[in-house]
């Protein structure tokens, strides 16, 4: 249970990084990335994933298929 950032769509705006309650988002070599080991999809903190909420691009942050 985690989210991931679609590399081809991320514009590296960085809006998602500060809103992550678990500090799972970091700037990678190419675009921002989500640490799947710590991402909780905001469960327990918020009703909806905060990164998805602030991301300006549609369908850029998606659930990782298990």
């Amino acid at each position: 249970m985690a989210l991931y950032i679609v590399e081809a769509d991320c514009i590296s705006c960085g809006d998602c990084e500060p809103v992550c309650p678990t500090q799972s988002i970091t700037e990678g070599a190419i675009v921002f990335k989500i640490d799947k080991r710590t991402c909780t999809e905001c469960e327990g903190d918020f009703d909806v994933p905060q990164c998805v909420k602030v991301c300006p691009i549609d369908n850029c942050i998606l659930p990782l298929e298990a």
Partner: protein
Amino acid sequence: MSQNALSRELALRIGLAARALPDTDAKRLLTVLAHCVDAPLTEAKVAALDLLTLKTACRGEFSHLGDDVLQQALSILKNTAAEKILPAIVAYQEGDLPNSVRIACASDDAIHVNGHFGACTWFMVYQVNRDEARLVDIRTADIPQGLVVDDKNVFRAEQIQDCKVVYVTSVGGPAAAKIVKLGIHPMKLAEVVSLAEVIAELQQVMSATPPPWLAKAMGIAASERFKFEREAAGS
């Protein structure tokens, strides 16, 4: 309406001529022009206009203005200074420039990217690939008279919806969000630079390691992109 019959070129020049006059928008100038000549307004009729007619028309609407500014507006109208003002549009057909992206630059003088997204005179639309850039269109984003739009910024963004990137010197936050929603990437420049510089810089990025979203816009296959990305990751 007579303006509907206006040629694109002439309409652009009326807009520009209005800008040369203080406190004048295209609508005001058009009203005065309508008094100078009989409808419809044509190139030939505009070419025959003289300074005195313009100055005294419409019960002296422009009579308080200096002869020099009126003369300047007139020369813009008559296209006698046109080559200095608007560069020529080059024909473009889909597929002419492989791996190209279409960009728009907000400009007030057709030389620099110096426009505010919500207020610039023109969007200079270019098709750019690594080696070539073509000016494919010059668009005004003014709302046509009589048309009611909910949101000016959405309307303006829709005029350049075929572009992937829009370069501006300034853009408001909510407007930027609307631009992004239409799939256009707004780029706010820190200082005023020429259109040529902006394009050269973009071409440099395109030929080096384009960010994935740009590579996607360029139509570079994901497999090819992968190679770029590994190189980027390695450096």
